[in-house]
């Protein structure tokens, strides 16, 4: 269906806005195996290389008066640490490395994806779903390991009136199991939608009469996307903290 619409509107739109999300092998060929280096793996690798450069090489000096790179690394560390401590509580700090890893990976993937012609790995639900499922399974298993069967009490809100409790329990169960879905689609959907909107406005730039307007719109949306990239990484990390808090303290 995507090809049809692209062909029909050839004159106005020379490319399809969703074309940028196609996974392509890097070195020729069309078949993709699990080991094929594709543009997804390339940009994931670049994200990890960037994180390593910032956090490992940047803080190698351990200077008392930090260099510019080191102070950025310290800022990121302090930001995530404070977030975990505030939202998940003191005993959630044990799981800080996991949340730091998630946050840094998402923030780097999002920002690298903003480079023109780059590939946004977090715009694929396959990528974000793996991260969200990992968070969901971690939190659920952690809850059962720490509290045993009484973790189920998470769904039984003892502060509510007795009549309402079964209904609330049903809603709580549904909202608990929809978490991995909303967690992954929020990130992927935001990144995909933003990049697609930029491409749609880029197509209008081909029409001379509205080209300046279109370029101004691209610039404005790009600025918004820089903000959204950070906020979505923040939201993903903070929701992980919220879920973690539920696992650590299931009693409302």
């Amino acid at each position, binding site marked *: *269906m*995507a090809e049809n619409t692209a062909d029909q509107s050839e004159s106005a739109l020379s490319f399809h806005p969703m074309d940028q999300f196609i996974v392509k092998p890097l070195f020729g060929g069309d078949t993709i195996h699990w080991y094929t280096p594709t543009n997804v793996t390339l940009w994931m690798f670049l994200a990890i290389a960037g994180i390593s450069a910032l956090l490992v090489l940047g803080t190698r000096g351990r200077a008392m008066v930090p260099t510019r790179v080191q102070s950025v690394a310290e800022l990121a560390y302090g930001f995530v640490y404070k977030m975990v401590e505030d*939202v998940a509580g003191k005993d959630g700090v044990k799981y800080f490395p996991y949340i730091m890893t998630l946050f840094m990976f998402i923030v780097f993937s999002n920002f690298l994806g903003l480079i023109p012609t780059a590939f946004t790995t977090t715009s694929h639900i396959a990528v974000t779903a793996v991260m969200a499922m990992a968070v969901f399974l971690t939190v659920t298993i952690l809850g059962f390991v720490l509290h045993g069967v009484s973790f189920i009490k998470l769904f039984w809100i003892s502060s509510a009136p007795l009549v309402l409790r079964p209904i609330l329990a049903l809603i709580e169960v549904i909202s608990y199991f929809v978490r991995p879905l*909303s967690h992954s689609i*929020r990130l992927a*959907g*935001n990144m995909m939608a933003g990049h697609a909107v930029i491409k749609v406005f880029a197509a209008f730039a081909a029409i001379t009469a509205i080209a300046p307007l279109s370029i101004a719109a691209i610039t404005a949306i790009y600025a918004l996307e820089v903000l959204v990239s950070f*906020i979505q990484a923040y*939201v993903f990390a*903070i929701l992980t903290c919220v879920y973690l808090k539920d696992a650590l303290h299931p009693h409302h």
Partner: protein
Amino acid sequence: MEGDIVQMGAYIGAGLACTGMGGAAVGVGHVVGNFLSGALRNPSAAGGQTATMFIGIAFAEALGIFSFLVALLLMFAV
């Protein structure tokens, strides 16, 4: 012919699904607006509540993203 009608239905459905985003916009605006009106009354307490605001935004936004997903599925998957 029948395929055309199905495709038309899918496109109309995708357009209708996008109206759900308006609801999410109202929700997010409501969250931030109320946060701001509270924050301006008591600015010293506002800093500690920004995280809560973002959690509220995220929950309100999730439902708008679901409607976006439905639109995408109708456009490309059906």
